[in-house]
């Protein structure tokens, strides 16, 4: 609950402190970002292109429509002596024009959108399948064919810093709230299929650079896929994108994209390790 006594003073300190820290914003984080990242898959770049296309269409329409409005506001004001033309009350012709033109624009927008959508839904020919299970509030990755499985949760330092009154300056925490203990390791240049489900409530797996956002729904399996470009290994960060309760804001995703060779080595080591661990477990149990 809101702690009433200190709220006001705290608000004022936050205001001053926030302003100060904004002005002194460390160059480390991508400050004042305005747009979506183009991402690292062919699909994400297409979607970025689509996003920019519709954005510019909207800008163009806005310039036209707002232009006329502003012109009227300047020109047809009584203070500059404008006289109303009360005969101008209806015109079937212009009304047809301004119904048809938007329809045409919409069709122009819809065609590439529909094409992209169809491609997005094509989950055939995938080379690696990973089942992702969402929990309140962590992710589980199951490499179905390799027998590797592990959980991924918010990194310790972020978790400590995010507590109320932690006293930590979160700007000092590396990748605050966007870091995990065990990243999701995938190969580049490979079509990876995700099978998403959840154990408790609905979550959504989202990594902006991959342009994948899909709900993880208890009792159902959803499919999604991505293929990271071969020259783009790296760490890509995302978050749960469906309200899932108290710690919805604290179940990030980190995708660790490695070259095919590195991935092969990694998964082999993991498989061996997990096999050993499980046999050790059965032996000690037996």
């Amino acid at each position: 609950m809101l702690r009433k006594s200190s709220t006001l003073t705290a608000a004022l300190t936050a205001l001053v402190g926030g302003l100060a820290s904004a002005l002194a914003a460390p160059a480390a984080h991508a400050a004042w970002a305005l747009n979506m990242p183009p991402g690292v898959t062919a699909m994400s770049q297409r979607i970025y292109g689509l996003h920019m296309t519709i954005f510019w269409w909207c800008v163009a329409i806005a310039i036209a429509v707002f232009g006329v409005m502003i012109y009227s506001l300047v020109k047809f004001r009584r203070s500059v002596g404008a006289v109303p033309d009360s005969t101008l009350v209806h015109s079937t012709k212009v009304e047809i024009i301004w119904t048809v033109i938007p329809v045409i624009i919409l069709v122009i927008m819809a065609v590439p959108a529909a094409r992209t959508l169809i491609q997005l839904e094509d989950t055939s020919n995938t080379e690696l399948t990973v089942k992702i299970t969402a929990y309140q509030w962590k992710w589980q990755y199951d490499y179905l064919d390799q027998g590797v499985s592990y959980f991924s949760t918010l990194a310790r330092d972020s978790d400590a810093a995010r507590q109320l009154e932690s006293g930590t300056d979160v700007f000092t925490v590396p990748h605050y709230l966007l870091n995990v203990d065990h990243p999701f390791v995938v190969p580049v240049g490979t079509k990876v299929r995700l099978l998403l489900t959840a154990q408790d409530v609905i979550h959504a797996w989202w990594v902006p650079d991959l342009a994948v956002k899909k709900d993880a729904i208890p009792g159902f399996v959803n499919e999604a896929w991505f293929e990271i470009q071969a020259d783009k290994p790296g760490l890509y960060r995302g978050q749960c994108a469906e309200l899932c309760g108290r710690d919805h804001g604290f179940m990030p995703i980190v995708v660790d994209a490695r070259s095919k060779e590195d991935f092969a080595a990694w998964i082999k080591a993991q498989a061996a390790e997990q096999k050993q661990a499980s046999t050790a477990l059965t032996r000690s149990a037996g």
Partner: protein
Amino acid sequence: MSIKSDTHDSNTYYIPHGSPWPIVGSVALFVLMWGAVLFLNEWASAWAFLPGALILAFMFFGWFATVINENEAGLFNLQVDKSFRMGMMWFIISEVMFFAAFFGALFYARVLSVPWIAGAGTKIFNPLLLWQGYNPGWPTNGPAKVGGFEDGSFSIIPAFGLPAINTMILLTSGVTITIAHHALRAGKRNILTIFLAATFLLGFLFVGLQAEEYGEAYKELGLKLSTGIYGSTFFMLTGFHGLHVTIGAIMLLIIWLRVVRGHFTPGRHFGFEAVAWYWHFVDVVWLGLFVFVYWI
């Protein structure tokens, strides 16, 4: 509320001044809902419903009595009558939409979610990863066999048993009320009284048989409200319908009492017609239920 005789001019629209009933009704619903909250959160027993229900009954009684008195005093001109009719019609349409939500749930489950759980369409991984060996179909209580008997099994009520009889009962009641209406218009009060009585008796008979059916479903068939999606849709749809039949039958009873008291004229009988419309609405919903819940 005093009504001056010089004010009822048939050209004027009657606007009531001040009435306690709306605020009594609001309080009643509030208390009733609080009762429900207390009960559901296990803060109190089912008695918590009582105060709200009593105030609500008081409100209905008082409000309708007021309106009936005003009507008998001739305060309502044809335009007022039309307002009442339109109001009733739109109220019934809103009721239809309430049922539509539950019918929607039924269709969604039958046509989409149950097949999807079993892997239809693009959901091929559901049976592979989550619900191995689920045999979809209708009726179903889901892949986890929720509710029903210990072993998760349950049976359903065949359409052409009691439900068919109930259909006949409701359809007959639709006919009897129409006869009653014609009799009212023709001024044949005896026929009116008899057929109206027949209508609400049929209504109560229907409710009785439904209760009987519910008992059997719970005791012998393993069909309960908690029996998966079949039980959920079955009981919610037939339950809300049964509730509406009960309300409708009570309204018919009240209308009958008014008829016995000599209310309504061949030309002006909005109260009667409103209840008749309501009754037909309940009838039509039942036909939907019979076809989609019991039959196919």
